[in-house]
Every structure is written in structure tokens, then in C-alpha cells.
């Protein structure tokens, strides 16, 4: 059997610690504490191994990766190996000295999340006082230092009314790219889904706003749009296919095909350092479980698109259809497709607004 093609990028979750408490965080409900994090030597060795395996980009994220005192050293290490360093951050801890040190280490691109278009709305979601203003200040410094800036606007029922203002804000900040991402319902987001799910009319209005802005800003600011699966007819090619393009490493050093893979019972994931990364990627049982199309059942197994979307998201199939081997219910051919849509519409109409914010104490309900 030919070994799988090498991955293009590694998502490095350096820490789960974060000053913000966004209720849609993609991190798992059981967060890794500081004592469980890996040290600088672990991450530098892993980046070296990843570069030898063929990884071209490393996305430093968390939690809040800026909380790691070794962030600049890790960026410098990646850059020295020719690996493109990307920082995904809340930006609330970035001052000019810090940003300058990261830029000098070779950082190419910074992605800053925003929770709304104004401080009152945004800070009520991030649950961090003055967070919004700190983000805007950091965004301006990123472009002033000559780095590429992406603004990541996470949208849901409670902030979609601010979408036009968020687009304008990103353009005013001089962002090279704006990612408008509807919440993906994994981790904390799945837990808070009823307070976040948009209605269909609200979603279609957002689609139109985005299409108009894309046309207007073509060639100036790229707008990437991620729609919510619950209103889709075709599943997303989650992570570019399980074990096809990306790998993710948790703060504890476990190597995963995606953020939520550990929610799937019965899968075994290995720690980097225990076995060569190349072996984990090529033959690790967790990666092999859903790589390619051999694991599929119908309707996926007989579908012409099986090599395009790879059956969508395994974690969503587990969460909504009860089995990770089922077709992602985002697919119109999945038995649970209508039920998924009905669930979204019922939750959107229910209008519950209270969030359970992301915290170390596990949720009570």
C-alpha cells in the first residue's frame, strides 16, 4: 500500500489557557491545565519532525498562544526551517514590543478574531473587559509592522445583525483577508448551540450581505465565508479529508486529525515524541480509521462525491447521527438530514440567550 501523501500544515494548540471565554470555542469541554502543557523542547523537536515530514505551514493557536513565553522562539524555529508561521490569536495580550518580537522572529501572518462590531456587543460574548479595543489596537500594529492580517469574524444568531458593520470594521483596519465564519458546532459551541443557532431567514440575509461585499471588495480584501452545516445541502470536506492534509497537536502533545477527534469513542491517538511523527501520520490507528473511503457505508460508499467531501465531518456524524461511520447529516442524502435542519430551526426559534461561558470548570448541564 502506498503511504498517504504528507500533510501540508500542522495546527499547534500550544495551550488551552485563554483570557477570553467565548461560548463557541472549538476547544473540548475538558480543557488542559497549564501543568499538562508541553515544554519548548517538545515543540521545537516536533516542528523539526513536521518540516521533515513535509509540513509547509504551522498555525500557532490555542487557547491563546501568546500566553506562551516561548512563542517567539517557536516562530523563529519554524521560520528557520522554511515553515510558514501563522498566529491565530485573540490579540488582547499583544502590545507593540511583543508583536515586534514576533515579527522579527519571522511571523508572516496574524489572524485576529472579533466577536462583534462594537465594544459592548463584542465584549459581552468574549466576556473580557476592554477586549474589543485591545484587538483593534493590535490589528493596527500588525499591518503597521508589515505583516498580513486576517480578521476572523465569528457569527451567530446574537451578532449577525452586526455583520455589515463587522465587514466595514475589517476594511477600515486594512485587513488583507476577512474570514466570516458561522459557528461550527463542536466543543463549547455544541454545548451552547441553542443560544447561537441562527434562523434560516437570518442566514439567507447574511449570505446576501457577504455576496455583495465580496463583489464590492474583490481584489482589495478577500472575504472567505464559512456557512453553518445545519442549513447546508452538502457536507464540508472537513479538514480537507480525515488524515489527508492537516494534523493537529493538542497542548498535551497528542496528534489528532481534527479538533474534535477525541470525542469519537474507540479511537486511539498517540503522543508526538513516543513514535516518529511520520509513523503516526502514515500508520497511526486514529488516522487510519477514517482516511480515504474504505470505511464508508451507504449512502457514502456508493456516492460519486465520496472522494470529494469524504463523507463530511466524522465528529458531527457521531454527535447527531450517533455513529462516526454514518454520513454527516449535513448531506442531503443522509437519513438524519431533515432532523438536523428541524433541530436548527427549533433552536433558532426558541430564542434562549444565556451562554455557558468557556471556563476550566466543566459545564454543569
Amino acid at each position, binding site marked *: 500500500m502506498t503511504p498517504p501523501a504528507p500533510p501540508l500544515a500542522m495546527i499547534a494548540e500550544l495551550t488551552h489557557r485563554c483570557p477570553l471565554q467565548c461560548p463557541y470555542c472549538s476547544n473540548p469541554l475538558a480543557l488542559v491545565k497549564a501543568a499538562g502543557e508541553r515544554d519548548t523542547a517538545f515543540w521545537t523537536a516536533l516542528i523539526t519532525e513536521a518540516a521533515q515530514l513535509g509540513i*509547509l505551514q504551522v498555525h500557532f493557536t490555542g487557547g491563546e498562544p501568546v500566553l506562551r513565553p516561548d512563542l517567539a522562539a517557536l516562530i523563529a524555529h519554524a521560520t528557520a526551517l522554511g515553515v510558514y508561521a*501563522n498566529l491565530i490569536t485573540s490579540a488582547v495580550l499583544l502590545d507593540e514590543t511583543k508583536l515586534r518580537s514576533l515579527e522579527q522572529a519571522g511571523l508572516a501572518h496574524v489572524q485576529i478574531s472579533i466577536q462583534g462590531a462594537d465594544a459592548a456587543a463584542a465584549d459581552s460574548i468574549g466576556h473580557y473587559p476592554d477586549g474589543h479595543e485591545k484587538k483593534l489596537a493590535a490589528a493596527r500594529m500588525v499591518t503597521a509592522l508589515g505583516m*498580513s492580517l486576517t480578521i476572523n469574524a465569528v457569527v451567530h444568531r446574537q451578532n449577525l445583525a452586526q455583520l455589515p458593520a463587522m465587514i466595514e470594521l475589517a476594511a477600515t483596519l486594512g485587513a488583507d483577508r476577512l474570514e466570516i465564519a458561522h459557528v461550527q458546532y463542536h466543543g463549547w459551541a455544541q454545548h451552547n448551540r441553542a443560544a447561537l443557532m441562527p434562523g434560516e431567514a437570518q442566514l439567507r440575509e447574511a449570505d446576501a450581505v457577504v455576496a455583495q461585499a465580496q463583489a464590492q471588495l474583490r*481584489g482589495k*480584501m478577500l472575504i472567505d465565508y464559512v456557512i453553518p452545516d445545519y442549513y447546508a445541502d452538502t457536507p464540508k470536506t472537513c479538514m480537507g479529508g480525515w488524515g489527508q492534509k492537516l494534523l493537529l497537536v493538542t497542548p498535551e502533545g497528542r496528534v489528532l486529525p481534527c479538533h474534535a477527534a477525541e470525542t469519537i469513542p474507540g479511537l486511539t491517538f498517540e503522543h508526538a515524541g513516543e513514535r516518529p511523527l511520520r509513523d503516526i501520520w502514515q500508520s497511526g490507528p486514529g488516522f487510519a480509521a477514517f482516511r480515504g473511503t474504505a470505511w464508508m457505508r451507504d449512502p457514502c460508499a456508493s456516492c460519486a462525491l465520496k472522494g470529494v467531501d469524504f463523507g463530511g465531518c466524522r465528529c458531527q456524524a457521531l454527535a447527531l447521527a450517533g455513529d462516526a461511520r454514518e454520513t454527516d447529516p449535513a448531506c442531503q442524502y443522509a437519513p438524519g438530514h431533515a432532523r438536523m435542519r428541524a433541530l436548527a430551526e427549533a433552536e433558532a426559534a426558541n430564542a434562549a440567550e444565556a451562554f455557558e461561558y468557556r471556563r476550566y470548570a466543566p459545564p454543569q448541564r
Partner: protein
Amino acid sequence: MIVNPACMPVLRRGVRRRFDATRGQNVLLCPERVIMLDDIADAITQLCDGRNSVAEISRILAVRFAADAAVVEADVLGFVQELVDKGLVAT
């Protein structure tokens, strides 16, 4: 933004070109994206330095690849437009 022969394309900040030894080809590393470059795409990308117009890039490549100038210009316009639309090149 529609690219025309007078445009002066330049790679935007955060876009870096390098040789990828694993895959044996040049690649364009971009914010949250990787573009694999074939020989023609790589030659065009190298000339997107803000000093050459699309027309000039086309002339240079037509000579280098001994190809029809009009055909080359159509290819260059198409590829530069793709890079502009992906937010990787400014004009």
C-alpha cells in the same frame, strides 16, 4: 478588480515563495493556504514584483518559452486574475 495588460502585479504581504523539497516543486505559501506552482505559474509568480506589467511579463515569457505572445498573455492574465481573486497579488 479586473486585471488588464497594463496592471503591475506584486505579491501581497504574507505571501512567500519557496522550493518544497518533499514535493519537488516551488510553492506559494500564503495566509492559511498553499498553492502548488507548476513551471509556468512559478515563472509568472517570480515576475510579479511590482516592476513588470502583465504585458511585459507576457513578453518575457513568450521569448523564454518560445511561445505565441497572444496565447501567453491570455495565460498570464488568467493566472494573475486568479491570484488577485485569492487575495495574493495586488495590482
